[in-house]
């Protein structure tokens, strides 16, 4: 889900995704690099991502991922599910 979220900002490559997640979570979440690529490929297979080889800013060929309409829909569904769940947890953990 987090991968999908980072791609809302626009298409980018695996390295950037890892960086973005780390940055967005204020370095709390360290991305396990060994599971990033299998996850990306799984998402691509499901059709939520599409990929393209592009030249990156350092002028090397890098595979950049882009959110597909299907992935966008999925992100929306997951986000709302997540929000319901997290607010429920929040209510339990901090009873008013």
């Amino acid at each position: 889900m987090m991968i999908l979220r980072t791609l809302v900002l626009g298409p980018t490559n695996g390295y950037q995704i890892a960086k973005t997640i780390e940055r967005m979570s204020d370095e709390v979440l360290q991305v396990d690099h060994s599971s990033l690529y299998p996850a990306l490929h799984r998402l691509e297979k499901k059709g939520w991502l599409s990929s393209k080889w592009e030249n990156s800013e350092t002028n090397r060929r890098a595979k950049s991922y882009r959110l597909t309409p299907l992935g966008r829909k999925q992100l929306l569904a997951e986000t709302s599910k997540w929000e319901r769940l997290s607010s429920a947890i929040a209510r339990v953990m901090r009873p008013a």
Partner: protein
Amino acid sequence: MWQWLKRKRPPDGEIDEELEYHVAMLAAEQRDRGDNSSAAQDFAKRKTGNVTLIKESTREAWRTPWLEEAQRDLHFTARMFARAPFFYSLVISILALGITASVSLFSLVDGVLLRPLPYRDPSRLVALTSYAPKPPYESNGSVSYRDYQFISREASSFSEIAVTYRTGWSRVTLLGNDEPTQLQGAFVSPNLFSVFGRQPLLGRTFDAEENTHAERVVVISESLWAQRFAASPTVIGKDLRFSGGLWRIIGVMPDDFHVPFLQTQLWAPILSHPDWNNHADGDPLNESRWDLLARLKPGVSLARSQAEINSIAERLKTSSPDNTNSLKVVPLREHFAGATKTPLLILFAAVGLLLSIACINVTNLLLARASHRQTELAIRTSLGAGRGRLLRQLLTETLTLSAIAAALGIAGAVALVPVLTHSAPTSIPMLDSVEVNERVLFFAAGLSILIGIMLGAATAWRLNNTSGLKENSRTSTETRKTVRLKSLLVASEFALATVLTSAALMLIRSFIAVLSVDPGFPPEKVLTLRLAVPVETSAAQVTQFYSDAFARFAQLPGVRATGGISSLFYTDESRVHALRLVEGHAPEPTAKWKPLVWSQIGGDYFPAIGIPLLRGRFFTARDTPSSPPVAIVNQTLARRYWPGEDPIGKHLKGFDPRGRHDDWLTIVGVVKDTHSGGLEKNPFSQIYEVQSQRGDQLNNLVIRTSGDPAALASATRSIVRKLNHNTVIANVSTMEQLLTAQTAGRRFQTWLIGVFSTLALGLAALGVFAVMHYSVAVRTNELGIRMALGANPGEILLLIIGDGTQLAFIGVLLGALGSVWSSHAIGSLLYQIRPLDPLNLVATLMVPLLMALLACYLPALRASRIDPMKALREE
């Protein structure tokens, strides 16, 4: 689906490159923080982790899980087969046996009954046949030419009606450089080819104009073209000599054009038939010698065309009171398959029973195996395999089993089908087109999937009753449940096997009854020749030819008597007749008419074939065309007209006048009855005339010898050839061969059903053996206790045998009920045995029970030898 296909797995190189980029970027980042190049590289690698593993699991992401699982299941299945090779090869061979039998029989049914006929829109093709709804039942299925003209004028249900000269009149003798041969010609209307929607391979077919002018043009078959003309394209325009004339070849039809007769070799315009203008042999316009084949108009149903034909038949009856026949519209397939349909379907049903027994047997074996695997399955469940996952694995196993069995079964069928078609009676039409084709393969594939799923479901049912992982899952209640299911299966095996056995026994007894029929003469040491003297030979010449032939035959070594008869057997005779005039009798009412045949004989026919004279005398050389006409009758005819009287010297008149002034025939002798209608029919009235007074051909010559009759075959052939080289010799065979040929169909059916029922009984016995074997293994403990408490081995033996036969007994009883029903289904194939024959019923019960007893004996013996101490200690 399209998207799924589009999302193709990236090549491995891309994943490598992608990761390299990642590592490079990390390293670059680290370098920016100030590390030196190699330290940065190390850091990046550390941070990324095990690159090989990542690559591996990334690739993993692209694999299809079910395919993977299926691969694993298959692998597992293979391992399992390897662990119990004997068990699984037994299972596979039982299934393969059942599938071989079913697939072979299906090829027969497919070739004869199902294969689409090679004509345009074959379901619209019909035959119009006449039948006699009341005595004298005199109909050969054909109509007169006048009726044809009337029908084709009046009927609106058919787009076209083709007319053909009926079989007997269409046989022609082909003359030329080769030995003369008799073959099946067809004199047909020009529209026959268009009705069936077929084109010639070469040349053209004849048109209406050529028919009207009775032009002698002919279309020949592909096989005749190959035989006589080496398939040369220059055949068009050549001449073919037959029926006293020359016919110009204008076309070649492909070999699968089996119209109007199965073995048609040439087609000529109907009006070119030599009999068309030959009114001496009856008026073709008024004689029933025309067969009608038609195409239904689009949208017209069979029922509607039949209704129209009924009203036309009524109008025909009012216009000619002599004609009392009705007309029937018959689908072409039925018209051709005719009498073979019922026996074939019965055989197919029998093979279905056999296959069911094989499947039940295999289910039983797999269940026994499953109880061994119970623990394994329980472990897999507790390790997280879901019900669906286990079911899928079981299905993979059973489908693999059935697929291997089907492959073997198809191979078996490929080997068996030629044997079947070879031993099948030639009366089955389209036998040459029986083959293992794509429809048969489709059938086998469907069968194997069905069997696989059924077996999987059965083992899964067993799985459903498996409760978790107990320390010893062989609790007694569960075992009892399994035993009950297996007992049920064994009982049903016996029920099915009993139905088959009962049918087989009845057919075998019928066959024995037919074989033991006394034909009315001793058939041993008799040679017969079927031949035809050219039609243009005069009556006097024909008579001379026979007396010369008889004289020469008599000089051959070992020949004791020779003679000839117009027709040896009348196996197709279904008509009933009465004599026109019988001295001292009123004409018989139609309702009392019975079959009656006339034969002409020559030489010493009766001594040659061995029919004894009962009263009076045989014909002699003094019975000549100028002496008063005489006749010899058989017992049945004598009893029919002169019961209790001496028929010698009595007078009668047949259908056609004899002598110069429609003279009376005087009966000079009475001979013993023979089964001239075929072994399975009761003897019917027969009148013999002497050939010299009638002038007809004697198509069958009979030679009685003192040695092996077959040894004289070539000598007799060359004598006939020398006397008249244009004589066609259609067949030379011994009398015993002729009689055997009459029973070929019955032999085939009996043989097949016999084999099926033997296999069925064997499988059922194997089933009861397996169950008892298993039950003894499970009950070792109990049996040990029994023995420890004083039961002696004999009692144990009886106990186990009793248990086993009890199962069989229930099945056999059910089967006996089923066989009451099935015996009516095969009623039409029985001879001199009633469906509910008591002896048969007893045998039907006893044979399977004996098999069961035998099958139980081994496990029972093992049970009685259990050492109680050992059995109890094992627990």
